[in-house]
């Protein structure tokens, strides 16, 4: 057995893979936050709860209706996205004329309600969700053992992130979206239904969070608290990357996941706070964030 800096390669690559997986979730969630913030000008505090809902809907589909993983991967984001659209129409849309901070407070309250309800009915011990049969087992890559499901999570997240980037940067719908982010009044004057665009954008961002939740379900147990701490880390990721650029969110998400994984190998005690420390350094050096536009 050869060793790298005194660390067995199995442990090193294992942690890097775990970092990459966490990074996938950071990337998808911060991407959703950035898209929502771009158009709605609110920080969606409910994002963590909606990620959790994605995992729970997948669990419910399997246990109550017998819908397997692959179905859940499509259905759960649509279902959770639809609940997001209802929330946006009923509550969030009434706050657009106010200070952005009220949006943050409202979505924080909603997150408390949703998390509390799930805790009340399902407890906090966590529910198991099996890995789909097609993706069980793993590959021996020589230097490490790669569980198939974990490889799938990284690939699926990359595909989703890049598709989202493609939709926003390269399609007509994305052009409307970017234009509405810059100047909603002008886009409205051109005959685009901006309020509907806003609603759909919120639903899409929420759907992304739910998709991440379904991906996470077989790795972590399905737990009402699974989104609560994650969302705060994602906030730090968003501060580090800045919300100006889609690709920036993706790169920052995966990069920070890897750094976290490396920290877990070399200095385990620091792994929980390393992202916050990086945030402090970024604030000192480049307050607008790595990919942020200076307002």
């Amino acid at each position, binding site marked *: 057995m050869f060793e790298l800096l005194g660390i067995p390669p199995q442990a090193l690559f294992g942690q890097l893979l775990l970092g990459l997986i966490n990074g996938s979730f950071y990337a998808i969630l911060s991407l959703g936050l950035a898209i929502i*913030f771009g158009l709605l000008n*609110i*920080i969606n505090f409910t994002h963590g709860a909606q990620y959790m809902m994605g995992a729970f809907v997948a669990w419910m589909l399997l246990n109550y209706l017998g819908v397997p993983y692959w179905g859940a991967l499509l259905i759960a984001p649509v279902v959770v996205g639809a609940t997001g659209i209802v929330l946006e129409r009923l*509550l969030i849309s*009434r*706050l657009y004329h*106010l200070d*952005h*901070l*009220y949006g*943050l*407070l*409202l979505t*924080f*309250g*909603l*997150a*408390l*309600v*949703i*998390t*509390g*309800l799930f*805790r*009340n009915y399902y407890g906090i011990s966590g529910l198991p969700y099996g890995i789909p049969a097609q993706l069980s087992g793993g590959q021996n890559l020589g230097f490490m053992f790669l569980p198939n499901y974990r490889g799938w999570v990284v690939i699926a997240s990359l595909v989703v992130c890049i598709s989202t980037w493609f939709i926003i940067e390269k399609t007509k719908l994305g052009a409307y979206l970017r234009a509405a982010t810059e100047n909603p009044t002008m886009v409205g004057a051109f005959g685009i239904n901006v309020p509907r665009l806003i609603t759909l954008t919120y639903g899409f961002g929420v759907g992304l969070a739910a998709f991440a939740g379904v991906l996470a379900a077989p790795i972590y147990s399905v737990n009402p608290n699974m989104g*609560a*701490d994650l969302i*705060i*880390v994602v*906030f*730090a990721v*968003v*501060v580090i990357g800045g919300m100006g650029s889609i690709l920036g969110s993706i790169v920052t998400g995966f990069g920070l996941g890897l750094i976290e994984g490396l920290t877990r190998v070399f200095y385990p*005690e620091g792994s*929980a*706070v390393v992202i*916050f*420390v990086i*945030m*402090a350094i970024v*604030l*000192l050096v480049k*307050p607008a964030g790595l990919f942020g536009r200076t*307002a």
Partner: protein
Amino acid sequence: MSVATESGSTNLAAAQDTHTVGMPTHHKVIFVALLVAGLVAPYLLYPVFVMKVLCFALFACAFNLLLGFGGLLSFGHAAYFGSAAYVSAHAAKIWGFTPELAIVSGTICAAVLGLVFGSLAIRRQGIYFAMVTLAFAQMVFFFSLQAPFTGGEDGIQSVPRGALFGLIDMYPDRNLYFVVLAIVFFGLLAIYRIIHSPFGQVLKGIRDNEARMTSLGYRVNRYKLAVFVLSATLAGLAGATKAIVFQLASLTDVYWTMSGEVVLMTLLGGMGTVFGPIVGAAIIVSLQNYLATFGDWVTITQGVIFVIAVMLFREGIVGVIAKWIRKPL
């Protein structure tokens, strides 16, 4: 000589006139009423419960100083409240400090932490400011989870209440109660003084129009940092006192739910009002006590109150009353 004294005394009279404008009569009445209520309360209610309300009232007022008057939404005030609680508990239990010294050391810790985090956080505005403060608070939470002296999941338990100045035994609830009342009342008056000082006026100017204050030549960031540190310090005073009252400092004190609770108290009572956060704190603490046996329904109820407060009455309870009687409260 006599002429000089005479002109001096008229100046003094004029000065006194402007000072009566400074503290309106109805504010004086409310302060006296609060003091009377505070003195009577331990004979009518369970003293530990009232002390909890007092500590959270100070915490919420300190938070409101930052949000309501500085216009800065910190989503991480648990960091200052909780770290002060830990330091105060550690000082009293391990170092054998008397309670007043333990509380002072906790408060100093919160002030230093506020200075460090504040100077970083004020580099971003609005929503980013909220996220940055929340992230720093989470960092303090993880630190508290792992640090050797915090006792991890157990927290620091059975903290001695000790004897005030080494003389007065603090174990009887009534003895401790009046000390806590004095601390909290001092804190409230300090906040009132800050709000109504020239410094407070500049703060309100920054809150309402930061660009204008910059163009008027104010170093806006210094004012923001100053109010951040003041708010963190007073939040720390509340946390340090709480640790002595409950003889406990735990992870709950530094968790983000605590930051959310103080936002809720301020929002419900009325942000930007002097007395609102006290009302908000009393309501939320009573609610927690009442619903304690229902587990998760505390969280759900708090969430629902959040939503209702944001959607329907953003001025808060005291803000609505102030509108009715057309006087600032």
